[in-house]
């Protein structure tokens, strides 16, 4: 039986970072692009609405929820067109949305539209938060990119912290006279033709060939949706057929491997932008996942993926070769009974559950007897969930988003005799992801005690303003908290300081994700009298050994 309540890694435990045995621990993080509307302003510019979210959160920081700093993103190390297969895409040939290394801009006209904006501030498009996360306007959506963490449970915690930030901003907009209320959704499609992402990032050693990652991950990702899909009413990218499917994202994927994230989406994204020492690390950028509200779904999504990465690094990952990976992804998503089979090149036909079992069994075979508690917890939950899904998928509604959603939809269909084309079912699908505590259907299920939770709400609120202690996010978040006046820019792998009376900006690089931790730098922060003293100690003093 799958129980509730997660187990935290004991503080001070030395964690295997990357490529050390079969484990769920590695440097990872999540990104959420939220769906956004202002119901009273149907033609509102989505970029403008998204900037309202960023600015509303900034306003709550100014009012004392935290410090406002680092509003300029440092784009120096962004390389969105570098392909992990060993080449670079021509800038002229790229889709404009792939040029994520250019700051987004609002036109003067758009800014003029912004009635009632507090006059003391320019329109902000980017914030680096006290918890080490980034909150910014990504194309037409507000996006929260979590700080780097080292375990699935922390990934869930700081992902939920992003939802907390989003809700805080949404409520703030609703409370400002003259502003039209905005609703944020943690979903991945408008069910008309458009999809937006919730990405995962995993640090992997550069020494593992990209082709080894791709061949083992393609069948894993084609089937992972059965344990963590978010569910969708409607089939096809244009919602052209009525019905229910397991995944929000599946129908928007057309390729096996590629660099794009917004067009011709691939199961394996090859963007090679490590945000770390490039000679040592890759950042595997996973774009195929659904945004999860259910904490167990989210936990298993990142936990099982981390386990499969460790199988690949140890050279013991199964490689079931799908005849048609994209077709398999769609077919598995379109069958909530989980009985559909897909063909392997060796002639076998397997279900999505069979594929997941293959990976889960490989983990069980390779799992050391002294595996740590959280690794064992992820494996136990994965194994138990697969068994439940085989018996009756509906029994896993407490752990899996798509099943909880389907259960509500089926209850409505039974009670009111609704066809899949009924707009009320489409509304339930949408409103499942509504982040408003009183309106969101997932939120109501959670409050009723109908879903399993892993992180207490008080801890989520804490994580919205505190960084993880065991990655460079600690250094980033603490710099922003301690020196809001001097930190003028930031990125994943740098902080830019501007000291009073000095012309030159100081750029501190943080290219080692497992440095800049509390263990290495907390004392330095405590000792330093001010930003100048801090930089002097960090960069030239006897404390050089703790520098990120």
């Amino acid at each position, binding site marked *: 039986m799958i129980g509730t309540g997660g187990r935290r890694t004991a503080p001070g435990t030395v964690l295997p970072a990357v490529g050390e045995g079969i484990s769920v621990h590695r440097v990872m993080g999540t990104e959420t692009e939220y769906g956004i509307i202002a119901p009273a302003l149907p033609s509102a510019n*989505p970029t403008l609405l998204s900037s309202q979210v960023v600015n509303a959160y900034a306003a709550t920081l100014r009012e004392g929820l935290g410090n406002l700093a680092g509003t300029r993103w440092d784009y120096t190390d962004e390389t969105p067109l570098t392909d992990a297969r060993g080449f670079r895409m021509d800038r002229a040939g790229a889709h404009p949305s792939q040029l994520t290394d250019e700051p987004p801009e609002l036109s003067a006209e758009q800014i003029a539209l912004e009635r009632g904006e507090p006059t003391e501030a320019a329109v902000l498009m980017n914030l680096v938060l006290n918890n080490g996360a980034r909150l910014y306007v990504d*194309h037409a959506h507000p996006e929260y990119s979590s700080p780097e963490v080292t375990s699935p449970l922390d990934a869930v915690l700081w992902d939920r912290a992003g939802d907390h930030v989003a809700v805080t901003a949404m409520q703030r907009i609703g409370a400002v006279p003259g502003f039209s209320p905005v609703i944020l*959704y943690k979903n991945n499609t408008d069910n008309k033709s458009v999809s937006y*992402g919730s990405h995962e990032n995993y640090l992997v050693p550069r020494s593992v060939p990209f082709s080894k990652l791709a061949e083992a991950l393609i069948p894993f990702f084609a089937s992972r949706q059965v344990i963590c899909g978010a569910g969708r009413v409607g089939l096809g990218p244009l919602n052209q057929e009525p019905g229910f499917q397991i995944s929000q994202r599946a129908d928007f994927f057309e390729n096996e491997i590629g660099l794009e994230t*917004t067009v011709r989406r691939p199961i394996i994204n090859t963007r090679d932008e490590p945000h770390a020492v490039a000679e040592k690390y890759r950042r595997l950028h996973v774009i195929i996942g659904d945004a999860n509200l259910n904490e167990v779904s989210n936990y298993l999504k990142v936990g099982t993926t981390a386990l499969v990465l460790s199988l690949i690094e140890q050279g013991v990952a199964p490689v079931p070769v799908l005849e048609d990976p994209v077709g398999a992804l769609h077919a598995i998503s379109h069958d909530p009974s989980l009985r559909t089979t897909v063909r392997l090149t060796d002639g076998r036909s397997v279900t999505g559950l069979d594929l997941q079992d293959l990976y889960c069994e490989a983990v069980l075979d390779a799992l050391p007897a002294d595996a740590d508690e959280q690794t064992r917890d992820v494996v136990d939950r994965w194994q138990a969930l697969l068994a439940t899904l085989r018996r009756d998928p509906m*029994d896993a509604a407490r752990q899996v988003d798509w099943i909880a959603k389907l259960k509500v939809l089926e209850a409505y269909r039974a009670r009111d005799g609704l066809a899949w084309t009924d*707009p009320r079912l489409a509304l*339930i699908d949408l409103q499942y992801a509504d982040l408003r505590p009183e309106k969101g*259907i997932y939120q109501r299920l959670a409050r009723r005690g109908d879903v399993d939770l892993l992180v207490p709400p008080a801890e989520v609120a804490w994580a919205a303003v505190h960084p993880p202690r065991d990655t460079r996010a600690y250094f980033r978040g603490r710099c922003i908290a301690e020196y809001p006046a001097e930190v003028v820019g930031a990125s994943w792998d740098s902080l830019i300081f501007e000291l009073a009376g000095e012309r030159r900006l100081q750029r501190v690089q943080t290219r080692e994700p497992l440095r800049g931790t509390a263990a290495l730098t907390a004392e330095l922060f405590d000792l330093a009298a001010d930003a100048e003293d801090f930089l002097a100690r960090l960069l030239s003093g006897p404390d050089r050994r703790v520098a990120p």
Partner: protein
Amino acid sequence: MATQDRRNTSGSATEAEEEIPDPAPAAPEAQESSQTQGVDDLLDEIDGVLESNAEEFVRGFVQKGGQ
């Protein structure tokens, strides 16, 4: 709420019972009625929060492309 005019809780009991997986043999009736009650409660609660004009609301949820 526009959604409430289509509520039909009285006719729902039999259909909702189909949701029940393997009722415990000891007290099947008690379990069925408590589970049915749970589903009815849940739908009542959701009825109360669903946006009022489903078709219009869903049509109005238009997003621009993302990653």
